[in-house]
């Protein structure tokens, strides 16, 4: 029984990491209305920049700051070059543009910093902690706490600041927001930077776990099932979705794996999301679109 809980909690904690990546998506989707496929590339880029600076002897906090600035610059460039020209186009067009964007950022990241795997040591030991007869990873717990504080920070940002109000207005109706004087471009740059920040944190956590390497950008694909279950527009949904995906993926691998074969976690989240969609086409927390004829 304890084994089950161990696997479950391990999965939940992994789910927290998925949720972190998904939150980046939600932010951008809420503000720009686009599913940013390049989020994974952004996670990779930010983590690579950070790690490469560290390797060159730059102190931790300075490296963090520089990486953040890099994300800001990317946000500005993206807004100017990609979002503005495509402002009225269909969501599928925007999605395909972010697909192209992901290729650009990935290529750039690897051209700049190389394709080797970089180890990342965040100074948190990975020694297991014993809690109630179960072995839990200290690192996972740290990641969960980080995610929680990040969410709290974001909630405060969205709900208690004027900037947050502007963000929510833009998410709801960009044209109306324009009409009341909200500077759309500013808001977009801010959102993409914040998403970049979230991506950086996610990248660091994932990188510490897996090593900072190219496959990090594939993690982003798992965010899609998370978003489908949690809805594209809800941060709490992203968390719940992440937890569900993380847990179910691990459980399936451990309990179903011996019967059908290993590697289930490659497709299980998608199958789960698909089933979910068939029952609730708008996700757990998402908004139902009402079509007016």
């Amino acid at each position: 029984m304890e084994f089950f809980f161990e696997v479950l909690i391990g999965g939940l904690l992994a789910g927290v990491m998925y949720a972190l990546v998904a939150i980046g998506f939600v932010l951008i989707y809420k503000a720009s209305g686009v599913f940013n496929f390049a989020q994974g590339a952004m996670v990779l880029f930010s983590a690579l920049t950070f790690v490469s600076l560290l390797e060159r002897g730059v102190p931790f906090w300075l490296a963090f700051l520089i990486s953040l600035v890099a994300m800001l610059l990317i946000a500005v460039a993206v807004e100017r070059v990609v979002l503005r020209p495509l402002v009225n186009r269909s969501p599928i067009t925007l999605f395909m543009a972010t697909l192209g964007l992901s290729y650009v950022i990935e290529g750039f990241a690897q051209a700049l910093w190389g394709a080797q795997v970089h180890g990342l040591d965040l100074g948190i030991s990975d020694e297991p902690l014993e809690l109630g007869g179960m072995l839990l990873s200290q690192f996972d717990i740290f990641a969960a706490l980080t995610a929680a504080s990040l969410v709290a920070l974001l909630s405060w940002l969205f709900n208690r600041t004027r900037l947050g109000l502007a963000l929510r207005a833009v998410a709801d109706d960009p044209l109306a927001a324009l009409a009341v004087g909200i500077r759309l471009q500013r808001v977009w740059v801010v959102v993409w930077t914040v998403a970049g920040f979230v991506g950086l944190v996610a990248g660091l956590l994932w990188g510490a776990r897996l090593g900072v390497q190219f496959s990090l950008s594939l993690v982003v694909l798992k965010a899609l099932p998370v978003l489908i279950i949690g809805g594209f527009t809800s941060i709490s949904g992203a968390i719940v979705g992440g937890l569900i995906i993380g847990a179910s993926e691990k459980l399936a691998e451990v309990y179903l794996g011996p019967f059908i074969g290993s590697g289930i976690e490659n497709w299980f989240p998608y199958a789960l999301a698909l089933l979910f969609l068939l029952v609730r086409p708008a996700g757990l927390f998402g908004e139902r679109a009402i079509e007016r004829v």
Partner: protein
Amino acid sequence: MFYREAGQFNTRYAEDRRVFALRQDRHGLAALLLVAFVVVPWLGNDYWLSAILIPFLVLSLAGLGLNLLTGYAGQLSLGSAAFMAVGAFATYNLEVRVGGLPLLFSLALGGLTAALVSLLFGLPSLRIKGFYLLVSTLAAQFFVTWTLTRFGWFSNDSASGVISAPRLDIFGVNLDAPAGRYLLTLTVVVALFWLAKNLVRSELGRQWMAVRDMDTAAAVIGIPLAKTKLLAFAISGFYLGVAGALWAFAYLGTVEPHGFDLNRSFQILFIIIIGGLGSLLGNFLGAAFIVLFPVLLSNLVSLLPGGLIDAGQVENLQKMFFGALIILFLIKEPEGLARLWQRLRQRARLWPLRY
């Protein structure tokens, strides 16, 4: 000046429906086909045939498959490579396990198998719309590749999981030489493109476009949404399956799941974005671009002072360039190279006049 259009009138509806309305265009097409079928295999060198023309043709076919589903019927899909894999493995297993099947027949059956699988993963489209539908085809992509790797039966239980394609024989004529493989591919591609041309101009083609443009209105005027969408998935799957089989048999010579991964799906999506969604010619243009661009880039790089850019960097540069090009096309010319070509032709029709 190139086009003397005076005196060319259509007197019957059938004439009006022709794809190439101008006599010059029809002659041009005939000449092109002549060159493709006769001149190229006779004069072409093996490198061009094997490494450029065959993949170009197969990727055009794959692009067409995805274009039917996404460009015409408006159902976004990231699972194209998975359906190609199904076609490749189905054809392989048929050839190896069921003796004496004519090659073209196995190809067709491989395509049909892929059609069925595609239909299955297309069922969610009846309930899920637009962007969310991606999940279904993504699930297909990962599930199919997992299944084909996991269960050795598909690879005839070979130890490495990689299998070689059997000999290509049609009516007793062996086609394993580059020219033979090229002709086989060319024939299949031309035949399937002809079929596709008829399809997109038929009632089904219009129904696809109606569903793509506004499905509620389509339902109101009597278009059966379920049948239309499912046919799109099935027919698209068939085309992708045949393309996959050709990719494995006529191009690579081996059949293995890793060549049909998510990157391949992206590649095909790029082909139709660059070539032009909802266009037949676009598939050729996009495929030509995808096949020739890396060759051009590495040739360009080799012209630069040695060692300036190493091989690894070339790949990264290529990636960046592709991505940038996708964005550029989406902004400037969302209808892709096909539209650019159309505009060029319009100018050619009037040249040397301007309007």
